[in-house]
């Protein structure tokens, strides 16, 4: 394949990864920003989103589009409710102590993973995409007669992959608007800024925490629903996703939504491009190296402010 089309394909693949990663990592970042909880179980919420999407589409059996829309609504609600319950039952009891919540969420990770294994099973199961047309992409070339279009072999994407990118952009824009413009967003930011002061002003901090933890999990679940028609739902799929999300939020700055989004695009695109031109292992190595460098030279992340 020529270099130009090759690069474009790599960037398209990278953009899909970046879209999913941005959604998932903003959930992780939100939870850390507001609650100061490092949620190690975040990858499992992503996995649960995919598994619930499979369950909904299988039970409903109403045709690909309706099934998918139902999954898009049901999965984040179910997973978010589970996470909110986990917050009230586990994290609240630990007084959101940073070290103990890490250990608790590690435990939660294994519980969710093994429960999925025991009920859903160890197989990878597919969900049919609501639409999935192959779109051959043209490429321009300077020929004898000036600029001309042609369709390079293999340069293509699918309508669904483009939809994932668009959906992620819309969802993240909505999240930013929600945080900036709504009263609920204001309360969350107030809680993030100073928990005690927020309590003094009558903010029900515990309820905010439960909602934030549930909301963060719901974002991961949404990412899971979006990816499952491309990949399949599998009980181990949360592992890699969690690692990449942590890479993204550390580079972007824990708690900074804008930083998370920029880092997701950076990591997603570089992963796509490096994987295509070199090897996927090298892409992961470079991402991990970037994390190490950020931690050494700019521990608060590219966009993170100094912590209080």
């Amino acid at each position, binding site marked *: *394949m020529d270099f130009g089309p*090759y690069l474009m*394909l*790599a960037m398209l*693949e990278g953009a*899909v*990864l970046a879209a999913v990663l941005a959604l998932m990592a903003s959930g992780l970042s939100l939870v850390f920003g507001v609650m100061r909880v490092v949620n190690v179980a975040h990858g499992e919420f992503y996995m649960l989103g995919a598994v619930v999407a499979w369950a909904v589409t299988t039970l409903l059996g109403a045709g690909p589009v309706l099934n998918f829309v139902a999954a898009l609504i049901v999965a984040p609600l179910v997973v978010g409710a589970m996470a909110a319950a986990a917050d009230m039952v586990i994290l609240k009891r630990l007084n959101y102590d940073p070290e103990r919540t890490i250990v608790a969420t590690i435990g939660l990770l*294994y519980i969710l993973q*093994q429960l999925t*294994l025991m009920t859903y*099973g*160890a*197989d*990878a199961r*597919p969900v*049919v*995409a609501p639409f*999935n047309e*192959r779109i*051959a992409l043209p490429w321009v070339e300077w020929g004898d007669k000036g600029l001309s279009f042609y369709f390079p*072999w*293999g340069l*293509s994407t*699918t309508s669904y992959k483009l939809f994932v990118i668009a959906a992620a952009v819309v969802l993240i824009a909505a999240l930013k608007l929600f945080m900036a413009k709504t009263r609920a967003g204001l309360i969350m930011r107030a809680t993030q800024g100073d928990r005690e002061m927020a309590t003094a002003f009558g903010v029900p901090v515990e309820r905010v925490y439960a909602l934030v933890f549930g909301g963060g999990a719901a974002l991961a679940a949404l990412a899971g629903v979006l990816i499952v028609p*491309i*990949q*399949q739902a*599998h009980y*181990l*799929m949360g592992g*890699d996703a969690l690692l990449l999300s942590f890479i993204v939020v550390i580079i972007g700055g824990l708690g900074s939504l804008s930083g998370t989004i920029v880092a997701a695009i950076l990591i997603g695109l570089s992963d*796509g491009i490096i*994987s*295509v031109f070199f090897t*996927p*292992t090298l892409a992961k190595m470079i991402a991990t190296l970037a994390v190490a460098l950020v931690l050494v030279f700019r521990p608060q992340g590219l966009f993170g402010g100094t912590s209080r």
Partner: protein
Amino acid sequence: MTETSKKTPAGTVRGPSRRQALKTLAVGGTAAATLPLWARYAGAQTGEPIRIGFAKHATGIGASYGRWYDRVSQAAVKKINAEGGVNGRPLELVTEDDGTDPKRCAELMEKFANQSKCDLAFGTLFSHVVIGAAPRAAELKLPYFVVSEGHHVASGMLNRWTLQPGITDVKSQVKAMAPFVHDTLGKKVTMIFPDYAFGYDHRDNFTAAIKALGGDVVAQIAIPPTETSFTKYFPKIPRETEVIYHVMIGPGVLTFVKEMGEFFGPSRPEIFGFIDSLEAVNLSSPGLEFLEGTYFWEGMPRYLQPDAPGYVKAYRDAVGLDANGASVTDANDVSTAAHMFGCWETLHVIKAGMEACNYSGIADRQALIEAVEQMSDMPAGPDHPQGAKRFNGKTHQVFGPQYISKVEGGKLSVVHTASIEDTLYPDEVDYTKMSF
């Protein structure tokens, strides 16, 4: 936490008659008088089940294989026990989950040998797991019957205690496929394979075989078995490629094949795949339509072929397979038909080996290995439904027919059967010269 521990009931076998028991006791008594060390085995000999430690890929990336390996093994044990067991003793599967993990499987060898008192270990498929566990089996002097199809047994990499008598290895499969690919499909091949031992068996042996025929492998693309997104690898396929040779494993196989179809669109080259790329996957899954007219290697046909002999039907019924190679109770639960027959055949080889050496207990483990090493031709039939086999005692590897099927109307139809002779290659090791 992921462990599933299960014991198969002895089934409907009648224990040995009282006279037999008395006779055995008398023999045991004599033996005990002469050789006191034997006593504990002789006492256990009569009706005690023979315990087979089954390392099952119940979880991890091999889980769909594990589920079917389990079903086939259960069915084979049921059949063998219904036919009188081994010298009157029933077989019993002691099933443990190895998590498709070499370290865990090596621990299982220890558990089988020391804790659950198994006579032998059996069943592992994934090559990295076999390679990880076989040295431990040898240290424990535990016979280890693998159903893996990797070339690691016949290559001499393993040891005297590890045998593969129920399924052919990749080297012979590939050797038998190369002439078909070269003569029928094309001479410039791009290979796509998983990035670990099993994939390297494909890479090395197929590249050598196609070069020997005058063809060429124009690109070799290795993909990690845990990969979930594949489109990024396909641009490495050179434009001149005439045939894609693909073999993939792991939870992402359906995505792999689907994305390959999306990449090529309407202008695909010829495609030859090992069915591993779609084991346990329904061929009528959305996105697989482009496979129509492509070819697959199959260890044993997934779809019931019109000319299938009676013993094949009996085998399929015993396992619970419908005509499409899925479970009779769930049409979406598609089998790993091209590999799982190996469990059935291996258990029958174990039975034959034990009867040949008059196996009486764990003191005869070495005799069992020696007895199996003596085996050679095994006729096709109820014990060997995949076809006639030829076992090579020196390399501990069996050879058998291979099938090439074409996707026609969304189903696999056998178009070519490679004979045992097509699969043979010179010995690379003589395990019989190694010490126990």
